[in-house]
């Protein structure tokens, strides 16, 4: 009997976890296919006539949203490439060389993560304006990458530490330059770490709100910003269209996280626990 009770409790636990994580997500995805009258109706939670009307409305009336998605995509790719590239180089240096100066700079790297992002918007805002970089992809790419290079470097260092030094020493004997060693020896073997760093940057850059809110207005505004404008229409929120937009914004990154969960976990444990 206790055994039965235990499996019953376990089942309840599993159901609670699934409900907690998936109900909010599932509900908006499901509701995005509902007609307005079905969205808040109790009788049609699961039984309703699916319709694409919300997606059509999103397409015809919120063209801005798809433009925002494209901006999000460009910014995410840019920030990821930049963050992974510089983290790889620094991670290699921290893994292979040791000196007091380097240690101090590693400490600085971790220390700097404490500065809240909103604090630096104050001095950056006038500078970005003055440089004419306001509302450009460039600003967001650099900001997003910068806020992840600390973690990126720590994660890369952890992964590169596991690559035997004999490999790069052998390559050096063969006359390879430092850069060639990184590109030919380290890069292929550190792919796992690079993937782990990419997962963090991609999820962050795709979803980020604060910097996009402050530094972009029209040309470079990202998808989360457009969705926030849709919520902002306080009187009479068009829930259906909002659900369609949220679903479109969410699905690619959700699929990505599920696909990459192994790397996400590896990166989190390498970055947070060891760094």
């Amino acid at each position, binding site marked *: 009997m206790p055994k039965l009770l235990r499996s019953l409790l376990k089942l309840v636990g599993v159901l609670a976890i699934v409900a907690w994580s998936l109900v909010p997500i599932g509900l908006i995805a499901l509701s995005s296919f509902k007609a307005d009258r079905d969205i808040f109706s109790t009788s049609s939670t699961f039984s309703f006539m699916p319709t694409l009307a919300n997606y059509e409305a999103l397409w015809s009336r919120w063209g801005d949203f798809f433009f925002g998605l494209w901006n999000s995509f460009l910014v995410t790719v840019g920030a990821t490439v930049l963050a992974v590239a510089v983290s790889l180089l*620094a991670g290699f240096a921290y893994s292979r060389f040791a000196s007091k100066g380097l240690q101090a700079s590693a400490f600085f790297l971790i220390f700097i993560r404490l500065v809240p992002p909103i604090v630096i918007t104050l001095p950056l805002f006038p500078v970005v304006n003055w440089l004419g970089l306001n509302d450009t992809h460039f600003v967001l790419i650099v900001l997003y990458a910068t806020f992840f290079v600390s973690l990126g470097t720590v994660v890369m260092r952890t992964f590169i530490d596991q690559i035997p030094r004999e490999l790069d020493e052998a390559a050096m004997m063969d006359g390879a330059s430092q850069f060639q060693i990184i590109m030919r020896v380290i890069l292929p073997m550190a792919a796992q770490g690079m993937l782990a760093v990419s997962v963090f940057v991609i999820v962050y850059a795709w979803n*980020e709100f604060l910097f996009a809110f402050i530094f972009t207005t029209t040309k470079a505004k990202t998808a989360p910003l457009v969705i926030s404008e849709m919520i902002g229409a306080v009187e009479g929120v068009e829930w259906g269209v909002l659900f369609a937009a949220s679903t479109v914004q969410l699905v690619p990154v959700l699929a990505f996280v599920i696909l990459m969960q192994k790397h996400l976990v590896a990166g989190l*444990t390498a970055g947070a626990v060891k760094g």
Partner: protein
Amino acid sequence: MSARTPLSAIALVSPVQLMIGGIIFLPAIYVFWLSLNQSSFGQAASFVGFANYAKVLGDAYFWKALLNTVIVVAVVVHVELLLGLGMALFFASGVPFRPLLLAIVLAPYAVSEVSAVVMWRFLFEPDVGMMSRLLMSLGLPPIEWAVNPSHGLAMVSLLSIWLHLPFSFIILYAARLSIPGDLYEAAAIDGASPWTSFRRITLPLLMPALLIAALFRYIFAFRLFSEVWLMTGGGPARSTEVMAVYLYLEAFRYNAFGPAAATGWLLVLASLLLALFYLRGLYREMFGKHA
């Protein structure tokens, strides 16, 4: 080894150091300078000493924002750690379809703050939202997050816990998995109850991971902005503002860069204070052998 350390290593770390130096460190220092001056857009700064700090510290809205921040951080971090710990132990005790369940638990990590606000507003929409109706059918009062400040903050906390639980869970779960199983076997042979082995084995060995997770979450929850901004906008009547929202409004709505900068530095100092313990340990670990 050290003979070839300098130049190439410096070249390799310089992009990272330049980025964080130029985009985080120097601006943060400049914010301190700003906080000692009176300035606004297109207006030359004039030195005012600590007047901005005095002004901020004399502002009732600042204290309200600080109090709200402290409450939300305390609730969010502790509830999140408890839930994360419970889930980690639950997973470690063996669950069916573990890889699938793990993916499900991680799902909120992929959700943007904006979409999360959409989801939770929908669930708690007054009168018609699914959760609102559930509360009503249980005879409980509805959550009036748009009108009642404490309800607004409760919604923000719920939202924040939901978004960040995957992080706390993963850290604790990884730490729990690294505890050797023989410890539990030995304890079982000695006749220890599950509660005893939790208290004597699991909890002490999980402590470092718990502290790390708590620290990261304290620091990150302290800078909370988007959830509050998107959920309540700081309203009604500025009653649900948190520190970052206060800073944003001062700087970008009231054009008061000085007080905003002072708030910013108070935020930085608070983060430093929270992290002091961790940084000291890290510093010792990195420099202890040399010093």
